[in-house]
């Protein structure tokens, strides 16, 4: 393989090293999927099975709910904003707590010894299992927010701890021979070394957090939300709106993941590691 094609970035490089068959398969896969969905939904509706709308019906529901959505009684953007707002809030709280805590646990074996049993007991509980309790105790706004917090907290925490423990001992020796105090070893070596691990944790957190927000909203949420759209659509038998909600959830998931991947890459470039 030619070296220069390796250094190109993004889609262009991906396409450049692809043969025509591969590009053809890539371009045709989604239209084929939609066509299959269409045929299946038409067939099922012919058998009096009405739960799967056609792609066109879903598209129409999307367009209609952009202005005013009949199940949540507000425009689609208001639902998206409600979900994204909760997502951002829960995410930020998780980072603000998990990053410093992870740095401390990774650095101090005493803090690790104390916190490990608690963390290991709580970690296996799926965030969604907390939803009923959180909604009852914290209400319809903070309940979903804290669900996201729980979902994002543990993967970020694990990554930060792993990052601190992965620090090359040679770099610590170097810092010490350069006259670094323990605090300086922490701020000038351990913390910067952990940043790429923190970013990787955030990326995992985005995926899980997005799952959590939708799951929490399926129970209930104040002020609507894309998850609410799905359950409400189901409740009143508007399956086209239910599917429109699923499509929006998927698209927003792609957007948030792309943003976090972009940020991770920027940070690596900024740190001279890419």
């Amino acid at each position, binding site marked *: 393989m030619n070296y220069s094609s390796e250094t190109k970035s993004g889609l262009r490089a991906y396409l450049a090293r692809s043969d025509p068959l591969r590009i053809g398969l890539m371009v045709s896969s989604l239209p084929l999927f939609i066509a299959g969905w269409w045929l299946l939904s038409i067939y099922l509706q012919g058998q009096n099975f009405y739960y799967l709308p056609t792609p066109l019906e879903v598209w129409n529901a999307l367009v209609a709910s952009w202005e005013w959505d009949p199940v949540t009684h507000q425009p689609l953007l208001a639902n998206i904003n409600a979900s994204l707002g909760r997502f951002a809030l829960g995410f930020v709280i998780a980072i603000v707590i998990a990053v410093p805590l992870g740095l401390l646990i990774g650095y101090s074996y005493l803090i690790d010894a104390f916190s490990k049993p608690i963390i290991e007991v709580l970690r296996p509980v799926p965030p969604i299992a907390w939803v009923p309790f959180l909604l009852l105790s914290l209400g319809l706004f903070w309940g979903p927010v804290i669900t996201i917090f729980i979902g994002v907290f543990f993967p970020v925490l694990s990554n930060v701890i792993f990052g601190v423990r992965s620090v*090359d001992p*040679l*770099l610590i*020796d*170097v*810092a*010490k*021979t*350069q*006259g*670094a*105090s323990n605090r*300086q070893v922490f701020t*000038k*070596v351990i913390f*910067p*070394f952990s*940043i790429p691990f923190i970013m990787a944790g955030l990326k995992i957190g985005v995926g899980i957090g997005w799952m959590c927000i939708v799951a929490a909203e399926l129970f209930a949420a104040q002020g609507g939300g894309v998850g609410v759209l799905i359950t409400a659509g189901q409740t009143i038998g508007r399956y086209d709106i239910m599917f429109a909600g699923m499509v929006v959830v998927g698209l927003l998931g792609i957007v948030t993941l792309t943003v976090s991947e972009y940020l991770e890459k920027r940070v690596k470039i900024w*740190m*001279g*590691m890419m």
Partner: protein
Amino acid sequence: MDGHDVILSIKNLKKTFPKDDGAMVAIENFNLDVKNGDFVCILGPSGCGKTTLLRMVAGLEPLTSGSMKVKGEDIEGPGSDRGMVFQEFGLFPWRNVKKNVEFGLELKGIPSEKRAEISQKYVELVGLKGFERSYPKELSGGMKQRVGIARALANDPAVLLMDEPFGALDAQTRNQMQMELLRIWKETKKTVLFVTHSVDEAVFLADRIVVMTSRPGTVKNLWNIDLPRPRDRASSEFIALRKNILDELEVQKTGA
């Protein structure tokens, strides 16, 4: 040698490491005085404790008994009066060349203008002018070690400690770096303590060679190398010296 001139003094040094069945003696009864401006190579079979010795001078390992003094003061932990160059370079990947060289100055809180002035001086000294903004991953092994040397020198240490600094380089780069090091040594007039297992490297570089015995490590012999620099590896004196020192090391290996 009069005491005033001695910059590093090691007396009756002993180092043991804990082991399952008691203690492993790594270094015992080790004595060495290094004069200001001396280039001293420590040579010995692998496992003789030469790297441990250097790490103890750096303050990265505590001594078990005996004494180690730099400029008359006991060594208690690491400090910027002893600069260390590591075999695996140990550059901070997220810092460019300039920022790597400035690391120690940053720790001391020296203002950025002064830092830039000092780092520029050492970047130029090691021949990396024009690479100030490059990151370690963009540099070859030889260039990385030039950064390592500049970084150690930027703190203006009393002693430069070098732990097989060219061990990770290919033979050609290694020879080139040895000549560069001699040039830098002449310009900075630093005291150098250089650990190597290559007799050739030691004879090429050193004023004095300390040959260590295998474990427990102690001084077996001290060689004064009076050959004028630049030294010619092909000269009969060089070859003879190398052979004599090699023979001395061989005797140990066979246990005779």
